[in-house]
């Protein structure tokens, strides 16, 4: 992958999904002979034209049949293929859940599930198209690695990582076109190792997906008001990065987890589960979708209902610090 600032801007314009399937996958398939790409009638929207043109024999459209897609992917993987299967996160992670449990989690088939438009980017389509529980479902399945991309560049890094492992992976892609940029230059992506984007003060924001960029903006707003905080990108929800969390808990008085996901079972829960096993750790504030849905509308309109915008995150932190 040619990493230039111009390319990083192009990838951002394509969004996480477009960068993953339009940029990363064609290149990966050229390098790796056993790669397959499956979709459930979402090739066009996912920007797969380039892949289909370059590698028609590696592409399969199963129609709107997510369960069958996962089963077929498992069959191909049992015979030695490295299979990427994708559609909306809401459909792939929920409709196909038992097939994922059976074939990926239990039998360990080498299938990479890519759930796109996770969170509420499909805000106007309503709850059916939102994925605000997918991390909870995937995280509960043994043997799955669970990743969540902060921007388009990170989505590409995840595609490369997944293609080079022979174990099942769930990759959560959020947002639509014009994805906010978190990484303006190359960085060291290691699955299972969170990235510190900003380090200051004794409050730590741990974010994932689109909430990373939003939290970075919140940290700037807070700095303008004289409140310093750190921001971490937790791109790997499972396995969780215990050693970095140990440091974060030791260095901070307040932990704020931010995710475009139900606060039950998501990234915040993963952090809390580990934190609960330790003595003398700081308090945690959960920002996300408190158990419940929201009114459909634009993505920001939905975020505002849940307190997920930059200004709301900043205000919440000021409030929490006041009451600490």
């Amino acid at each position: 992958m040619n990493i230039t600032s111009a390319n990083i801007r192009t990838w951002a314009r394509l969004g996480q999904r477009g960068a993953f399937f339009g940029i990363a996958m064609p290149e990966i398939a050229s390098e790796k002979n056993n790669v397959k790409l499956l979709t459930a009638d979402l090739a066009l929207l996912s920007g797969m034209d380039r892949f289909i043109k370059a590698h028609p024999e590696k592409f399969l459209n199963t129609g709107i049949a997510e369960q069958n897609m996962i089963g077929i992917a498992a069959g191909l993987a049992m015979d030695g293929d490295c299979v990427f299967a994708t559609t909306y996160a809401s459909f792939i992670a929920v409709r196909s859940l038992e097939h994922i449990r059976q074939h990926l989690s239990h039998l360990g088939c080498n299938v990479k599930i890519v759930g796109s438009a996770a969170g509420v980017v499909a805000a106007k389509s309503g709850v059916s198209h939102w994925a605000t529980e997918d991390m909870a479902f995937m995280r509960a399945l043994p043997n799955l690695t669970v990743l969540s991309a902060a921007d388009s560049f990170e989505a590409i890094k995840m595609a490369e990582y997944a293609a080079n492992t022979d174990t099942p992976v769930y990759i959560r892609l959020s947002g639509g076109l014009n994805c906010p940029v978190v990484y303006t230059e190359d960085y060291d992506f290691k699955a299972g190792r969170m990235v510190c984007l900003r380090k200051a003060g004794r409050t730590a924001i741990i974010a994932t997906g689109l909430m990373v960029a939003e939290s970075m903006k919140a940290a700037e707003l807070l700095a303008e008001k004289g409140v310093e905080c750190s921001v971490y990108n937790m791109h790997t929800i499972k396995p969780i990065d215990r050693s970095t969390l140990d440091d974060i808990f030791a260095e901070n008085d307040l932990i704020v987890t931010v995710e475009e996901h139900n606060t039950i079972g998501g990234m915040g829960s993963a952090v809390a589960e580990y934190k609960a096993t330790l003595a003398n750790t700081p308090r945690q504030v959960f920002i996300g979708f408190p158990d419940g849905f929201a009114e459909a509308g634009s993505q920001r309109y939905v975020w505002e209902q849940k307190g997920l915008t930059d200004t709301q995150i900043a205000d919440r932190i000021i409030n929490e610090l006041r009451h600490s």
Partner: protein
Amino acid sequence: MSINTSNENAERLALMSRRMRLDALDMALASGNNGSHLGGSLSCIEILAVLYGEVLNYSIDQPLDPQRDRFIPSKNHCVLAHIPALAEAGFITHDEVLEFQKDGGRLTGYPKRQEIGLEYSGGSLGMAVSVGVGLALSAREKERRTKVYILMGDGELNEGSVWEAFMSAAHYKLSNLTVIIDRNHLSYDGNTEDVMGIDDLAGKMQSFNWHVVSCNGHSTQELLIAFADEPADRPRVIIADTVKGKGVSFIENRPEWHHHRLSEKEYELAKAEVLGGQTS
């Protein structure tokens, strides 16, 4: 490899079926109070005998040979038929058959162990046809002579994703895929047509563009002829008309024997019937 449909071969496979039925009874007795899936195993004994005794291409010395045929029981609870078939084939010893429920045993709990011919770990119904589609696509792409065989129960046809898989197998023209339906007309709660009707099954499969062959699933001769009838351009379904609990009069067509305990007294009665060849 062409299939030998002669009377002699059919007779050989009928004798193999009888040995397997006796194994199934031994296994049911060995399971004690746990009980076992005797009914749905006895219905597919002949199907498995014909598969392992004639149709499938496998080697017990090279169990992972990429060219081998793949057999997956989607109705994975047919262990009392499958394990005896594996013993007949030589994948496991005859003594091991009775250890199928032993804690820590390598046959316990529907395991995937390709080294002894167990290609897949199922248990949840309706999932394996999709896997078969993937395996068949892969075999065709890699230009292998591999054929894929999936054994299904009729009850699991109630599962929706099964029909997604049927649709896709025909769409991809997978002539290397065969589904055998053990049409024993019973699921756990009773007659399939009362619980959730699936007839006209042959008509449904034809309308899905499958090559449909129907036969008596307890006639090894009819099964051999069915397996010899291979389409060139589409997947094949063999609808094997069977009797749940076949071979033991007090088990035949009784839904409660889907999963049931076999007492010593019942075992003796059943064994005498199988040895005497008294079947309906």
